[in-house]
């Protein structure tokens, strides 16, 4: 039996076993869960090789699964983050109920993502896409908060996207009578002009929903913040990347054929940039850490979309690199929020402060992730952002550069808010007894955060598979070509130019740190945060010195006009309008049997009147 089947069977069987083991004992369930995900990861990376395929027939359709370098790159994200999140979940979810259900959905969503990456035909792609939707939906509603609002929003928009994709798929199937993705791409230039425009539009609709692009992003803040944090890291880190995966395929294989005057790429690049800007602004306004990170995810995906849409070699490389990096740092951050939620019971910046001394490891992981997110050298985020800027400048998208730059500068605001809100500031009595999260939660965070650190100096680790993925997509590219793409890479061959800078930074930092530490070492002592000077007075015990409400009020006042109404407001208006219409329409059934009989007669009379035009 082919290894591809075995991986899927292991995942599905493991999911079912985990689900049923829940009835027997918690330990058995956890064991099954962990074994399944580990076995999948090991099998996948040792036994499945790039180029393996299997094909079979189902319901008269030829289905084909296989792995290529592009899929492999994304599988790396899925399984890497998935494994870490699985370890994290064991500890995070301890003591909650419906665990069988949670682990089952978790594994099924991993399965569906692998399935998407391995599908070589449209039907299995769609099937796995939908499985991904409902399995993640199950987790979104797991907590039971706002299921009717956020859950329905999520499933509704996902369905909108999925059905757009389904329309495109049946259009393709009717045209070329085959479902193979590569066939579709090959025959795309021969499609009629209308179809050439509509196909990518429909596909991109589906993908932009999952990638949370404006204006289809409205589900994301609610869904990301409602899912348990152990899964949200996968949700935002890996699942949203499936949208990016699809977008890359569509952009590379379809839109590049369209004539330039359709402005397709420009529109999309701008939508990505607007997503980044608005996502950032809304993130700044949040007081709930989960919401903040959710909007931040939307914004980060906006950068990636821009990179994909611009589509030059370097832009694509940066998008792929950022996609993996986003998984690393956003995974870490969501896990950190989860850790804080578990230890303190709240995730509001306005409630919890001063955790740095209580949860130092969580703080270190968050700090690294935040630095990577902000794109500050020397961490990995900078490399990705750099490539993006460079590709935008080289391809003459100047205004876009400014938009992206604005978004990433404004991102510092919420980055600071995250760190300050949780870890810094006054150490209040209320949180005196908070302990560091268990090792099983801290370690995955630290490992992921360390990943961003390593990638800052050695991005080649990730750029090589990304380059291989791009070769699969048809970018004429060799390894030498890759290194000559960006000025960051050119002189050191396989490593970046930044190294001496990194050494200089580290050297300077350490030098001054040592000065600061050595000077007056004996005399300097730690004092609590209550012991501060406030205009010469010593603050009293009861004085509230925590600053966390209306954190960025001045800034939000300045950008007020753009943030008056949220996009979801318009959706809500539309939705309630539709519901009113539906409510009105059912009044046709007014309950009177005689009226129904009269309907029958009216129906008959109408048909009789128009029988000549109906039955020509």
């Amino acid at each position: 039996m082919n290894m591809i089947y075995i991986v899927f069977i292991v995942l599905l069987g493991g999911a079912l076993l985990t689900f049923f083991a829940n009835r027997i004992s918690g330990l058995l369930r956890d064991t099954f869960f962990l074994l399944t995900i580990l076995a999948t990861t090991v099998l996948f990376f040792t036994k499945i090789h790039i180029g393996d395929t299997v094909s079979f027939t189902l319901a008269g359709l030829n289905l084909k699964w296989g792995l290529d370098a592009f899929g492999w790159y994304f599988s790396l994200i899925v399984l890497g983050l998935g494994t870490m999140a699985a370890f994290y979940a064991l500890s995070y979810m301890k003591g909650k109920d419906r665990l069988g259900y949670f682990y089952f959905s978790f594994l099924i969503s991993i399965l569906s993502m692998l399935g998407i990456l391995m599908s070589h035909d449209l039907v299995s792609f769609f099937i796995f896409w939908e499985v991904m939707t409902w399995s993640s939906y199950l987790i979104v509603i797991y907590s039971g908060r706002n299921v009717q609002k956020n859950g329905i929003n999520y499933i509704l928009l996902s369905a909108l996207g999925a059905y757009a994709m389904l329309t495109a798929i049946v259009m393709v199937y009717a045209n070329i009578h085959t479902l193979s993705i590569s066939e579709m791409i090959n025959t795309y230039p021969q499609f009629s002009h209308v179809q050439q425009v509509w196909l990518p539009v429909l596909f991109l609709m589906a993908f932009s929903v999952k990638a949370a692009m404006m204006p289809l992003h409205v589900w994301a803040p609610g869904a990301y913040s409602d899912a348990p944090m152990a899964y949200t890291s996968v949700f935002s880190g890996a699942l949203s990347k499936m949208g990016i995966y699809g977008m890359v395929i569509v952009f590379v294989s379809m839109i590049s054929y369209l004539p330039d005057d359709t402005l397709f790429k420009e529109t999309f690049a701008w939508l990505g940039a607007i997503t980044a800007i608005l996502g950032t602004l809304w993130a700044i306004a949040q007081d709930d850490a989960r919401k903040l990170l959710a909007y931040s995810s939307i914004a980060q995906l906006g950068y990636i979309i821009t990179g994909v849409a611009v589509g030059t070699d370097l832009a694509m490389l940066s998008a792929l690199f950022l996609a993996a990096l986003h998984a690393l740092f956003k995974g870490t951050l969501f896990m950190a929020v989860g850790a804080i939620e578990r230890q303190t019971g709240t995730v509001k910046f306005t409630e919890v402060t001063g955790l740095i001394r209580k949860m130092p490891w969580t703080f270190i992981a968050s700090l690294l992730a935040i630095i990577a997110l902000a794109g500050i050298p020397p961490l990995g985020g900078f490399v990705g952002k750099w490539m993006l800027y460079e590709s935008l400048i080289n391809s003459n998208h100047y205004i876009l550069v400014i938009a992206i730059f604005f978004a990433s500068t404004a991102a510092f605001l919420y980055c600071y808010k995250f760190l300050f809100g949780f870890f810094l500031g006054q150490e209040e009595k209320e949180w005196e007894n908070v302990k560091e999260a268990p090792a099983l939660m801290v370690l995955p965070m630290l490992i992921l955060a360390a990943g961003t650190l390593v990638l800052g100096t050695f991005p080649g680790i990730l750029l090589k598979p990304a380059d291989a993925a791009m070769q699969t997509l048809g970018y004429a590219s060799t390894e030498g070509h890759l290194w000559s793409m960006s000025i960051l890479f050119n002189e050191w061959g396989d490593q970046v130019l930044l190294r001496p800078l990194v050494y200089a930074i580290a050297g300077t930092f350490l030098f001054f740190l040592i000065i600061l530490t050595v000077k007056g070492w004996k005399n300097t002592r730690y004092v609590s945060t209550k012991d501060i000077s406030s205009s010469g007075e010593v603050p009293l015990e009861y004085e509230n010195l925590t600053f966390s409400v209306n954190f960025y009020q001045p800034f939000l006042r300045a950008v007020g006009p753009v943030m008056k109404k949220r996009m979801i407001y318009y959706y809500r208006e539309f939705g309630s309008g539709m519901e009113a219409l539906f409510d009105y329409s059912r009044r046709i059934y007014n309950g009177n049997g005689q009226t129904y009989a009269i309907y029958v007669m009216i129906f008959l009379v109408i048909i009789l009147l128009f029988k000549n035009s109906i039955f020509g």
Partner: protein
Amino acid sequence: MQEILQYTWGALVSFVVAFTVGITYMGLNRKITARVQNRIGPPWYQNFFDVLKLGSKETSIHHGVMQHMGPAFIMVTAVMSLLIIPILNDNRFFPNLNFHGDLVFLLYIMVFGPLGMALGAGQTGNPNSAIGVTRGLSQMVGFEIPWVMALVALMIQYKTTSIVDLMNLQAETGRWLMFTSPFAFLAAVLAMLGMFRYAPFDIVGAPQELASGPMSENGGKYLFVMMSAGSVFAFAKLTLYVDLFMGGANNLIILVVKTFILYLIPMLYGIVSPRYRTEQAIRYFWGWPSLFGLLAILQAVFL
């Protein structure tokens, strides 16, 4: 090894130069401000005493690791900017880590230190620090827009992202960019007003209101390092402007003259201005300066 030693020596010298000049400028600022306001004011070398006093003071308290590291962060920014920005045209002595694309790198490294310091300020637990930080960050988002626009305009116009290239270009043609790209210069200079945080953009530290904001819990060695870093950073920024728009400098004297002339702009503007609130400041930067930035880009694209 020889090379590294030489670089380190050069770095030290440039640091000392930048420190001296920066502190002097600050002293001059106090003096001139006083004269304009019809006071006598402290002598121009007063700031040297201040720094020396801070450096020699015993520091007895800190509020945690981040606060302890904060000044080091800001120092990294100052030193790195100094290392990346070429100090003199065609210089042999001063170390230079610049590379193609250092403009973008600089944009990021310039916010690295303030953020690090902001973390330190945050840990002190003084609400004034945090309020100051939020104001500072918000204002930064404001002035980064015209600043980036100006830089992007330069990048478009001269097809390079390297400072050295821009300096060489000015040396070759003999024309300063402030004349060939006037709008970019205007936008950059207006953004500089925000960078220096003198009035009307001094709400970040607003001494009367916030007890000097982010700095408020720091004293002794911490404030010493911060002040030093501030002066070095100020000099580095002025040098950058000189390099970009005023043709650089062939020796230190010319550099000092040009930087001082530039420095007069935020200083004099500040003396005669009241204080903006944060949102007013942000809107200010997104008004005329950004318009100039846009004009600069249009000029770069179409001319």
